[in-house]
């Protein structure tokens, strides 16, 4: 099943049926993380550090323990001491000691909001009252929030045991520079020597939150024999199992994690915050415990994407050929090391042919919450700078910015930085579509400007397990371990329907708990429709083989004499070619032809391909106030084959608007003591419906030859281009280069006045 099938021959792939979990979600019946209730459940609350950086000298629990209704209290001292161990977290990796310490501080708190203690009580009100009675004595330490300040020799060092990785020789002093990565090729001096134009500049972006509307929440029920159940919403309940097991030293088979519906994640729910804490509270109290974050806890203590400082120099020859790029970017890591710099460095100019380049990335520790994955982690920031620079180069050369990108775009067969050839990628097709789109040539009015930007994300495969079983009446159950975060049940049912050739409505999809199906990696990295979809397709194809075999036995012919068409076995044996056995008949008599019919596929597929996008944005800048209005927006993307186009367009539209928020509004505001001033949606302003126009989408469907239905990952690419598309549009409207995000009215106003 590896040859892409002719798109026009598809019956279900590419259609837009109602998602199987839809009615539950529009009627309020679907159960999300904060909705689950266990009998006799206690309610937890977490005491969080008011300091950005402090040593915990003592914690006095006596008054809290004495409060009636308090059943258990947990601090960092209740967590087992762990040896450093690098573990997979989603597709990325972290030291399990840092994961544990981020769930609950032990000796030091590293950011405002860092968990210090937790209480379980008979009501939420009592738990919240109890944490106020916990007396923590802190020795406040100097803190640092800013990337460049954190790199200064006299900066407070967050971790005495972290030495910069990726430098040779290994440093002998700890520092806040957790990682340096450099990717270089060619000869920069020679490259810039060939340049007719060179642009350089410094670009900055602020940390931003994923902004999922559902706060983190879980219920944990521990039993005296050491087995426990966790009900939680996450992007991967197997990751919740493995991380909780490792943090607490438990056997994975003792932990059963049941996935609840997830209210958005965008990368931020590929890790754990609450589950080990709730487990310890449940163990101490002997009762199920719910822990749920408030919105302010989500902002103070869960993972933002890093902010960035990017210094860049790029050059192009007279004919528009890029000849050299020298880029150094520094990303916040937050309180613990992250590895977003890897992807930043490998994405930065991955969509262009640049013969001479050096990309250096740094991860910088600072007293902010530990950064976590956010949709194409590490790519939007550095590509923002690159795409702004390309805009300037095109302007100086007098070349249309789309033509300029097209001239330098990577195409199938070109070599990647690592020497591997690109497969069937579609960046050039996206750029051609941008050029041909009426948006690109539409007239603009006064104070209006148009920006264009491209972007890429590498996408991923990763392990997935799926089971396909046939019910006695011939309807079909698909079971996976991949949480459905944006309609993937529908995609799984479509691919199963296409393979089995039975109606979409005859297939229902379940996302099973960790004890009911084998391992799947997180729903993230734009991998689920690709990898879990391939597992579903493989299992469904095996079911077709079983069905044909059963029909052959029933008819007394060879399996090679049975074909499968339109959901029924067709006899090919001579003289019997009008005999048919529909799936329901075969399923009904399955016990008598060999037993129940089901198949499982457990795979780790390669063959994933990078995705590419081009966004066009029109803005109008109010010269009186500096306010930026988004007038028109078009997102173009190579999506491979769209299995369910509504949800592919939805990824493109949602990513674009998240990117618009990143470009225009979103930023954390800290006071001088390092306390977060805007831990709520009122002051951390994500885009609302009245901020944006319709988001026009163009899906370029260039099928992936290594997926049975041509799938490429689509979820992450669309957050990469918007930062520069918006900034380039504002730059053209304002007549002055806007290099610092977000483009808040005060910044735009100041730039307008300075340009006068």
């Amino acid at each position, binding site marked *: 099943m590896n040859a892409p099938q002719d798109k026009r021959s598809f019956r279900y792939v590419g259609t837009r049926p109602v998602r199987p979990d839809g009615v539950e979600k529009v009627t309020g019946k679907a159960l999300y993380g904060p909705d689950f209730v266990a009998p006799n459940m206690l309610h937890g609350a977490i005491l969080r550090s008011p300091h950005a950086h402090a040593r915990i000298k003592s914690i006095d629990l006596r008054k809290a323990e004495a409060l009636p209704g308090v059943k258990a209290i947990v601090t960092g001292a209740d967590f087992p001491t762990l040896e450093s161990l690098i573990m997979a977290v989603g597709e*990325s990796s972290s030291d399990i000691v840092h994961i544990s310490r981020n769930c609950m501080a032990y000796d030091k708190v590293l950011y405002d909001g860092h968990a210090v203690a937790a209480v379980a009580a008979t009501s939420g009100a009592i738990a919240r009252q109890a944490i106020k009675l916990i007396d923590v004595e802190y020795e406040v330490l100097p803190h640092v929030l800013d990337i460049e300040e954190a790199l200064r020799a006299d900066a407070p060092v967050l971790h005495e045991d972290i030495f910069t990785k990726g430098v040779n020789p290994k440093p002998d002093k700890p520092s806040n520079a957790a990682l340096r*990565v450099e990717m270089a090729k060619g000869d920069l001096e020679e490259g810039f020597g060939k340049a007719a134009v060179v642009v350089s500049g410094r670009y900055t972006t602020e940390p931003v939150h994923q902004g999922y509307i559902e706060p983190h929440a879980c219920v944990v029920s521990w039993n005296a024999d050491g087995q426990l159940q966790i009900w939680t919403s996450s992007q991967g309940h197997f990751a919740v199992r493995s991380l909780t097991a490792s943090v607490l030293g438990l056997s994975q088979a003792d932990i059963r994690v049941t996935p609840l519906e997830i209210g958005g994640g965008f990368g931020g729910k590929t890790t754990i915050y609450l589950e080990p804490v709730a487990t310890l509270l449940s163990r101490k109290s002997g009762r199920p415990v719910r822990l749920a974050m408030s919105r302010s806890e989500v902002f103070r203590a869960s993972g933002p994407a890093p902010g960035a400082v990017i210094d860049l120099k790029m050059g192009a020859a007279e004919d528009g050929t890029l000849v050299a790029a020298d880029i150094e970017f520094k990303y916040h890591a937050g309180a613990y090391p992250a590895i977003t710099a890897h992807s930043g460095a490998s994405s930065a100019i991955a969509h262009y042919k640049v013969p001479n380049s050096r990309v250096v990335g740094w991860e910088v520790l600072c007293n902010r919450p530990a950064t976590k994955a956010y949709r194409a982690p590490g790519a939007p920031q550095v590509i923002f700078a690159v795409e702004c620079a390309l805009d300037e180069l095109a302007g100086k050369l007098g070349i249309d910015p789309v033509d300029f990108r097209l001239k330098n775009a990577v195409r199938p067969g070109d070599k990647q930085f690592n020497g591997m050839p690109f497969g069937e990628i579609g960046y050039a097709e996206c750029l051609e579509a941008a050029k041909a789109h009426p948006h690109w040539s539409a007239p603009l009015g006064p104070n209006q400007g148009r920006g264009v930007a491209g972007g890429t994300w590498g996408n991923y495969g990763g392990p997935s397990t799926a089971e396909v079983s046939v019910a006695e009446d011939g309807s079909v159950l698909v079971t996976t371990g991949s949480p459905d975060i944006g309609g993937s049940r529908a995609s799984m049912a479509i691919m199963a329907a296409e393979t089995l050739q039975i109606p979409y409505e005859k297939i229902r999809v379940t996302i099973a708990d960790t004890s009911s199906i084998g391992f799947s990696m997180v729903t993230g990295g734009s991998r689920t429709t690709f990898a879990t979809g391939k597992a579903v397709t493989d299992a469904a194809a095996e079911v077709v083989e079983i069905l044909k075999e059963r029909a052959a036995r029933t008819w007394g012919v060879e399996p090679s004499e049975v074909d499968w068409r339109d959901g029924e076995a067709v006899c090919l044996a001579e003289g019997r070619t009008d005999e048919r056995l529909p799936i329901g008949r075969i399923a009904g008599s399955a016990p008598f032809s060999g037993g129940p019919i089901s198949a499982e596929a457990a795979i780790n597929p390669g063959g994933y391909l990078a995705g590419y996008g081009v966004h066009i944005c029109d803005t109008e800048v109010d010269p009186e106030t500096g306010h930026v209005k988004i007038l028109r927006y078009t997102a173009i993307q190579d999506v491979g084959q769209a299995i369910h186009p509504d949800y592919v367009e939805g990824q493109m539209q949602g990513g674009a608007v998240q990117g618009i928020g990143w470009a225009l509004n979103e930023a954390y505001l800290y006071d001088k003591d390092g306390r977060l001033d805007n831990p709520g949606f009122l002051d951390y302003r994500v885009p609302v419906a009245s901020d944006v126009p319709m988001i026009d989408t163009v899906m370029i469907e260039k099928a992936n030859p290594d997926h049975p239905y041509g799938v490429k990952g689509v979820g992450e690419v669309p957050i990469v281009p918007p930062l520069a598309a918006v900034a380039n549009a504002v730059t053209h409207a304002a007549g002055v280069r806007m290099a610092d995000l977000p483009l808040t009215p005060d910044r735009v106003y100041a730039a307008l006045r300075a340009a006068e």
Partner: protein
Amino acid sequence: MARVVVMPPLDDEFFGGRDRLEVEAANLFAAVRELDRLGPGFAEVAQVRATLAVDGVVVPDWSTPLDADSEVILLPRVGGG
């Protein structure tokens, strides 16, 4: 001997800055074991931090046989959201 190309930052972190190595290995499991002798500690983190490609194609199955003239590329694993 299979040729091994090591992508940053794994070259500096484990192999003293060397990004071109050679190992005698029948498959990728064996290659990782050999690489651990050249860069102690590499094998322990390889599965969670590295993606391996052979002759231009990412290979998730490390039991895939290597030829004498195979080129193995060690890529840092990139985490998605």
